[in-house]
């Protein structure tokens, strides 16, 4: 009986995946599948939360009341995405606060795009348009991910991300078609965000060690390079349409393949930022750690009060 052995369980597990049957929290799953998901979903959750900072940065300086409200709502959505994703992590038996502590000690990663500074209002446009745009490319396939809770969280998240993408594009196009100062602001921002945005899809397939296994498990449905290409093909014509210049002198359209081809991506920069040597890595993690430390007395008070209430109600 005991010999419904691991190999048999694994075979049945893979069979479900091959038949597109979702894996649910109570189902048996290989430990490595569980760990991969915990790592990936918590990284995704951290990205949503750390991603609040570069945009939160501009709320008090938003140029008018409508933009201020839209930006507040957007950053609030990102916090909500973080919440659903942390809940999805918890279905795998991981503890939300423990994964957050891993972020604070530098053990857990998050999307390295958020280690770049937001130095102008136009960056609110670039982030919505490019960063949320790239996130959508990454996340739409995850709506079909083999793990049920993650797939369902993504369906909800993707709806909101496409709204973010549209409002970001609206900001940047208004600037790109505005006064000379506004055009310059838009172009300068685009110059800074273009390359980091296309690096958001991660290293080239040849250098991506987890891809093959993740594809087999249907945690990942497309390779990094496929997703990156889709993003470039969609984004280049948008930039051209609003009159922005792609900061890549080697960019060309290949008529035979129907795809744009970019110049070489600076992977050294990518790995440096991943390692922690980006312009704002320390500021971002410090800000999150400080929020948690400064909030300790508040969480303790809430727990102590709840405890007192319980005692009172029991007596």
């Amino acid at each position, binding site marked *: 009986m005991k010999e419904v052995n691991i190999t048999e369980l694994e075979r049945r597990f893979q069979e479900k995946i091959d038949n597109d049957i979702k894996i649910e929290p109570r189902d048996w799953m290989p430990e490595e599948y569980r760990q991969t998901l915990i790592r990936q979903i918590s990284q995704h959750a951290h990205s949503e939360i750390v991603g609040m900072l570069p945009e*939160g940065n501009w709320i008090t300086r938003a140029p008018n009341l409508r*933009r201020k409200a839209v930006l507040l709502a957007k950053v609030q959505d990102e916090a909500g995405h973080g919440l659903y994703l942390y809940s999805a992590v918890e279905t795998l038996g991981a503890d939300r606060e423990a994964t957050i502590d891993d972020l604070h000690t530098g053990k857990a990663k998050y999307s390295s795009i958020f280690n770049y500074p937001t130095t102008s209002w136009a960056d609110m446009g670039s982030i919505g348009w490019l960063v949320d745009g790239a996130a959508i490319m990454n996340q739409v396939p995850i709506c079909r991910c083999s793990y049920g809770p993650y797939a369902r969280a993504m369906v909800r998240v993707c709806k909101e991300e496409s709204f973010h993408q549209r409002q970001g594009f609206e900001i940047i196009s208004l600037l790109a078609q505005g006064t000379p*100062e506004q055009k310059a602001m838009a172009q300068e921002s685009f110059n800074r965000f273009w390359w980091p945005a296309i690096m958001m899809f991660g290293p080239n397939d040849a250098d991506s060690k987890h891809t093959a296994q993740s594809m087999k498990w249907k945690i990942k449905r497309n390779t990094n390079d496929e997703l990156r290409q889709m993003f470039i093909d969609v984004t280049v014509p948008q930039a051209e349409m609003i009159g922005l210049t792609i900061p890549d002198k080697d960019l060309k359209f290949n008529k035979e393949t129907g795809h744009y081809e970019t110049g070489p991506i600076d992977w050294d920069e990518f790995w440096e930022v991943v390692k922690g040597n980006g312009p704002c890595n320390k500021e971002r993690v410090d800000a999150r750690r400080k929020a948690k430390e400064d*909030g300790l007395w*508040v969480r303790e*008070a809430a727990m102590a009060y709840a405890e007192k209430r319980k005692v009172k109600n029991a007596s």
Partner: protein
Amino acid sequence: MEKNTNLFEYVLRMGDDSLILGHRVSEWCGHGPILEEDIALTNISLDLIGQATNLLEYAGEIEGKGRDGDAIAFLRCDREYKNLLLVEQTNGDFGKTMMRQFFFDAFRRLLFERLLKSSDIQLAAIADKSLKETKYHLKHSSEWMIRLGDGTDESHSRIQDSLDSLWKYTNELFFMDEVDFSLIKEGIIPSMDGIQEEWLVYVTSILEEATLSIPTNNWKQEGGRIGKHTEHLGFILAELQYMQRAYPNMKW
């Protein structure tokens, strides 16, 4: 004409309260003590900015000089802002932010309830929309008063400090001058007298449950309603107005 000038001033004062407090609360975004509170604070800020938009747009209409809500929100000098001193005070720790919010929410709820019956239809409509939000904000800030006051020794002493430092700004909530007197006479706004009493009853009951004590010292600070502010407002305006001042006359 006289009525319009007074109504403009009154709506501006309310709009500025929402705008400046919304600005302050938005400074928390991304830095809250727990993710759920980060979301709640951002939501409160969003509501306040929405109220500010409705009120300042309306102020612009009453004024009739072609200024819209943005022109009023972003392009005045400091003495022309008429918000309460309370709302421009710094966030401090989470407890201080909640104490400031609690005083304000308790006041705003009573005010909006009465403004529902305003003879000015637009003001009554804004009150109707804002009252729902304000009730939620008040529930939230009241619950935090009790949790922090009756939580740990540390939280009790921190929140008591916030109460001590902010109490002196609460009298201004009930400020009245000729602007108010004439609008009260016309049935556009309620008298503050009943509001002040009810406010004190509510606030006292929550603070008692929170095991906190109201300062006996009666030192009061006011001036915001006539444009005399604390040092903090200038810094708020420096951020709030930055884009409009640095890049004038552009669409965003």
